[in-house]
């Protein structure tokens, strides 16, 4: 499988890392979409048999490098955190359907929670590159978990929410989705935990803004062959189980059903 070299591995905060590696595909020849993910083996050992999905956070087309930003949340990501520049890692991707960018849009609202924030960075970059204005709202449990705020601020205003009020405003991201903010937006793009996405979906559909949700499910294969990662969607009036790895992770918010 595609084995690529680690270029840089930075610590962004407690248990938070940015891993940059040679892209398994030629970025000049192949466009990669924000919201797509990389599927990474954290070790050759059978102790970590399955790959870990991590969102594309930055694509450096010039140097043909990709960056993922991840939080150490279990043994697998802990193992990944030990990789050093020059090490080889086994990476599949970018995989899946990312966030579509619509030509006619002028203003995009980006909404991220926790480890759902990283894909918003490449998204903001590509949105700006196609001339749209970007407004971002991100939420975290607590100040210690903040990430990528300055990087996102390069592309537009960033509002920060924390559950405990230790940074930005106290409250959930939905509290920041004021009528004012949303009236302006042609479209929203959200990535974060299920509870957040569900709340965002409700809030924004109430406000009549169309958008996209990037869903998170446990994956077996990441390439659409195990049917492990499904999420219910309404298609043609019928309930279906879509594969988040191949039909998603990004879905039109209208079709996503939260069970």
């Amino acid at each position, binding site marked *: *499988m595609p084995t690529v070299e680690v270029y840089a591995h930075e610590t962004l905060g407690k248990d938070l890392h940015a891993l940059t590696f040679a892209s398994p595909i030629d970025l000049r020849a192949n466009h990669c979409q924000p919201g797509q993910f990389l599927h990474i083996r954290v070790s050759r050992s*059978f102790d970590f048999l399955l790959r870990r999905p991590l969102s594309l956070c930055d694509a450096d087309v010039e140097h043909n490098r990709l960056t993922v930003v991840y939080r150490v949340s279990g043994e697998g990501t802990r193992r990944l955190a030990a990789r050093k520049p020059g090490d080889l890692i086994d990476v599949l991707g970018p995989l899946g359907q990312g966030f579509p960018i619509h030509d006619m849009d002028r203003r995009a609202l980006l909404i991220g929670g926790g480890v759902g924030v990283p894909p918003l960075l490449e998204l903001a970059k590509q949105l700006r590159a196609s001339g749209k204005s970007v407004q971002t709202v991100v939420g975290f449990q607590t100040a210690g978990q903040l990430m990528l705020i300055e990087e996102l601020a390069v592309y537009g205003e960033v509002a920060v929410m924390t559950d405990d009020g230790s940074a930005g405003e106290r409250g959930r991201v939905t509290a920041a989705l004021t009528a004012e903010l949303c009236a302006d937006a042609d479209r929203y793009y959200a990535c974060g935990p299920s509870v957040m996405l569900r709340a965002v979906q409700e809030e924004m559909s109430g406000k009549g803004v169309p958008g996209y949700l990037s869903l998170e499910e*446990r*994956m077996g294969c*990441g390439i*659409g*062959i195990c*049917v492990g990662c499904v*999420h219910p969607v309404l298609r043609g009036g019928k309930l279906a189980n879509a594969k988040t790895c191949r039909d998603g992770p990004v879905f039109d918010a209208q079709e996503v059903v939260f069970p």
Partner: protein
Amino acid sequence: MNGSQGDVDLSVSLLSLHLKNPVMPASGCFSFGKEAASFYDLNVLGAIVVKATTLEERLGNPTPRVAETAAGMLNAIGLQNPGVQRVMAEELPGLRRYPSVPVIVNVAGTAVEDYVAVVKALSTSPDVSAIELNISCPNVKCGGIQFGSDPRLAAAMVRAVKTVATRPVIVKLSPNVTDIVEMAVACEEAGADALTLINTVIGMKIDLEQRRPLLANGSGGLSGPAIKPIAIRMVYEVSRYVNIPVIGVGGIMTGADAIEFLLAGATAVQVGTANFVDPLACPRIIDETREWCVQHGVRSIRELIGVSWRANGR
């Protein structure tokens, strides 16, 4: 690869089917082939086994459906599939692009009548080379597992299906039984043309933070390298006892693993979980199998089948 590898004959006969090599993806670990085809030319495969097909469409179980374990994984997909009519109309025709690759359709259901109806439907399809009866899915209530754990029920099922099948019928057995040989013999006597062993082993993982089973379904099926010794033992015991071919499956990650199953008595092998870890697992395993034969002076892979017990006598 080197030139001398052309000397190794990897082909095996399985029932009426000629397989150019003994390696095929396992049911449920390859979907219907479309996705894998973006990674390699499926023509290299010995055969293809597609996902379990039921009479009606099934949405399967809620998520999480998969969990990682030491050298393995648990799944509780719950037989999600579009139903036999759509499988025949939408999925199987795409595999005509690989005319040298027999297509085996895995069939599941709740009652004998379901199985019979699905097999009847499939028997009209030009795209089906053989049927694999999945009487061993541990992940759905009434999902066939009762047929897989009672020899009389299994035999009745096989007999019923054989009356309508126009293709060879392979029975896929569950390892979750006291006496695998008894199950195998019951199926053989009822007319099974071949056996596949093993399906997944029932297992569970508890989420320590949530303090409840990690899979939404509670338990799931254990697969991967962890179960290889269980599968090898069952293939060994069954293949030396029955007179129909056995297809081995469980934890195959490398060519050496495939060879181990052949030595244990399998005529062909299926690769499941490995496809998730490495989308190129099947072609790699085929290459490694050939390479092993070259290095060990094996001219035809058929020489290896069952050697581990043939040497000791039966």
